[in-house]
């Protein structure tokens, strides 16, 4: 490219019409859509895949299929690691910014073990990696792969560790050694399991390419801070028939991190905006580098590792290799990953209306919150994890999808958000008046200033609840059940 000033453009997304023109246009509905046009829209929005259209796979459509495949494939190739249920997909991305479409495959996290760990410690660590789960907004967050490092550089030891890990866990593996002999010894024991090989370098790439191609495994290409060399190496590897590549431009923790973030950004830019196919691969980061020079279970190293991991997650990392298993450091990292990989096209609001928890009776409390999904899920999970879960009503009021804090600010400025009229309407439409014999509504503490107006307009008594729904059980214990018992 001779033009030095490249213009930042928007995503080169195909239009539904251009896709439609290449489809069979028979409206056969075999893909589950009513029309080929509807299927084309789904394809463009990445809500359907091309192979769901079975007729297009016929010989007569070969040229159309070829063109469709070209215009629909992701600029960042999707690479599959492992086999079976626990298969991990990385890459497959279309955009730089999530608001341009959505991020597709969440950053996979691999935790290391070494081939010099005594067998019992190795098994213990594998179990710890498998057991790491946290339930967040109804989803289970966990770790994805096990990275086996050859600290011994001894083929026999690496083979033994690989065997032990593969027999005790179904998680996909990353085999880590720059020595092809060591790599081969481990790889032979898990040959059908598609482990990720770490890594080909400018010195060993021919041998690594042969292993990757013989055993049909994805391969990491590692070139420290030199994207031109990285690009020429991927070209060589692709010529050697290794297509499932992962790029490691090398993670510099702290010192040099600017280079790392710049390299990650350029890789994503050049693949998504300029369609460079030699760099259109998932990116691997190694926050584990933060442990260089630190003792085992060092708090400082753990801290640094988690901070670097977070920065790389915000910078397009498809895979991270880490060491720490400390919950205090990994929890923020896995939640960050979950947050950024949520689909921004899905609405942030839940359906307004009455939610019934357990089997409430006519004396059960009635509370209300907004329909911003995060607020709703926080409040409902607080209710579900507490003793009040079997007996209460939660009225979800339309706040135009904003949370209580924002709704409160807007309400006090009379700028929408949540209105007293809206609350009154929600009460009458919900039919909750027929379900309980009291007329007391527990309102969020942050909306305390609406108390008088609510009472005036709805005829219900407004009881000011806590500002934080985590305190609901305690609040109800003190202000509700005691009173109900006294009055009944």
């Amino acid at each position: 490219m001779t033009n030095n000033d490249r213009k930042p453009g928007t995503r080169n997304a195909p239009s539904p019409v251009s896709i439609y023109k290449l489809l069979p246009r028979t409206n056969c509905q075999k893909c589950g859509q009513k029309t080929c046009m509807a299927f084309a829209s789904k394809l463009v929005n990445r809500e359907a895949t091309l192979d769901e259209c079975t007729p297009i796979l016929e010989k007569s459509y070969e040229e159309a299929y070829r063109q469709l495949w070209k215009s629909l494939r992701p600029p960042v190739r999707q690479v599959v690691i492992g086999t079976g249920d626990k298969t991990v997909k990385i890459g497959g991305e279309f955009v730089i910014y999530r608001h341009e479409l959505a991020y597709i495959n969440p950053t996979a996290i691999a935790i290391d073990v070494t081939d010099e760990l005594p067998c019992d410690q190795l098994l213990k660590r594998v179990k710890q990696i498998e057991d790491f789960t946290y339930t967040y907004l109804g989803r289970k967050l966990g770790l994805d792969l096990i990275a086996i490092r050859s600290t011994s550089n001894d083929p026999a030891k690496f083979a033994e560790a690989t065997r032990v890990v593969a027999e005790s866990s179904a998680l996909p593996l990353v085999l880590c050694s720059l020595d092809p002999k060591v790599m081969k010894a481990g790889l032979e024991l898990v040959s059908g399991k598609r482990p990720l090989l770490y890594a080909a370098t400018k010195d060993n790439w021919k041998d690594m390419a042969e292993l990757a191609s013989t055993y049909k495994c994805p391969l990491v290409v590692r070139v420290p801070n030199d994207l031109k060399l990285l690009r020429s190496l991927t070209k060589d590897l692709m010529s050697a028939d290794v297509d499932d590549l992962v790029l490691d431009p090398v993670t510099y923790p702290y010192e040099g991190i600017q280079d790392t973030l710049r390299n990650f950004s350029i890789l994503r830019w050049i693949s998504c905006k300029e369609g460079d196919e030699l760099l259109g691969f998932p990116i691997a980061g190694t926050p584990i580098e933060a442990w260089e020079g630190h003792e085992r279970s060092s708090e400082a190293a753990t801290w640094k590792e988690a901070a670097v991991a977070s920065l790389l997650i915000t910078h397009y990392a498809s895979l991270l290799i880490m060491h720490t298993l400390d919950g205090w450091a990994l929890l923020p990292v896995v939640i960050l990953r979950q947050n950024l990989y949520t689909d921004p096209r899905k609405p942030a609001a839940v359906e307004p209306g009455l939610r019934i928890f357990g089997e409430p009776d006519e004396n059960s409390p009635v509370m209300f919150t907004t329909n911003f999904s995060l607020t709703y899920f926080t409040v409902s999970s607080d209710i579900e994890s507490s003793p009040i879960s079997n007996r209460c009503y939660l009225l979800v009021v339309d706040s135009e999808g904003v949370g209580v804090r924002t709704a409160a600010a807007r309400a006090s400025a009379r700028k929408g958000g949540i209105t007293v009229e809206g609350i009154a309407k929600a009460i009458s439409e919900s039919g909750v008046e027929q379900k309980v014999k009291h007329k007391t509504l527990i309102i969020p503490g942050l909306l305390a200033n609406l108390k008088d107006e609510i009472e005036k307009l709805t005829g219900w008594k407004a009881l000011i609840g806590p500002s934080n729904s985590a305190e609901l059980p305690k609040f109800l214990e003190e202000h509700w059940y005691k009173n109900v018992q006294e009055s009944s």
Partner: protein
Amino acid sequence: MRKTPFGEKTESPTSLEGLKIRFPGKIVTVKLGATRSEGGTRARSILIGGEEAPTFYHFAAPSPHLPVVACDVFDTKIPIPKAVKMHIEEVVDDPAEWAKLYVNKFGADMITLQLISIDPKIKDTSPKEAAKTVENVLQAVNVPLAVGGCGDPLKDLAVFKEVTEMAEGERLLISSISPWMNVREAAETVKKYDHVALALSGMDMNEARELNRALYCTLSREQIVMDPSTASLGSGLEFTYTLMARIRLAAVMGDDELQHPLSSGVTNAWFARESYRKMAPQWEPRELRGPMWETVTALTSIAAGCDFLMMMHPATIQTVKDLIQKLKESGSKRTLETADWISLRI
């Protein structure tokens, strides 16, 4: 070069040669604080903004100024998470001492004095008294200051009028002017006494834009910093992250109503329950989990394009300042040619 399912290969024409991407827009540079020669009493003033590319696009245009760390000091007792409280317990009754501790010991670039006590529902502190507290903090530390209200649109305006007049010429960052207050009057007092406005909007790009338009009637572009609202890690961070990234991208693409430095209320991290509450042993200690929560929120804000970070925990401040410094410097002493981490004995 990539194979199609039909076995053919295609090669793309791109290369890394001369990778220089031009963005047409530029963020305005805003000066916070004023030295004696500039009409104030600060030891130095701080510049933020001036970017000509999204954050970390150093290959397009390097950021001229680094993000600034401002630490929150409150003028009255508020519930503070244990993990933070243990570091500031000695000073929480005295905003001036609190500010000194943050600047002298923890390395804060700036202080944000949060005048919570003016809230009619809390202490209803008078504007005069609030201005006195600001004066005390100005005397205690010589860094630029941001001054925050309580969120009550009427009371905030009354206090801002008093504070801006008392601190004329100091280029305080007035936090904040929101669409739900009398924007014109608030902007006028900021203008009259030469300060800077933090424009707070409710997580909505159009609302942010409309507020800027309203402020342009009174203020110069160099007097506006934007706060599109911060939701922290685990509490809607993705909305903030994407909104800030969109604002910044639109700005460098040439949208001149959004070309302002961005501020983030990173302290909001402490609203997320996983940041402060006691959890099962595998997630403990919360004394580390909490500041890590705040750190991740801060780093995400920086990645989205933030220039100004309001924070609380000393460990967060140190990590973030350290990383900001490292982000400035290109080049590593270590080449990492041999992938030492593979054989690292840890």
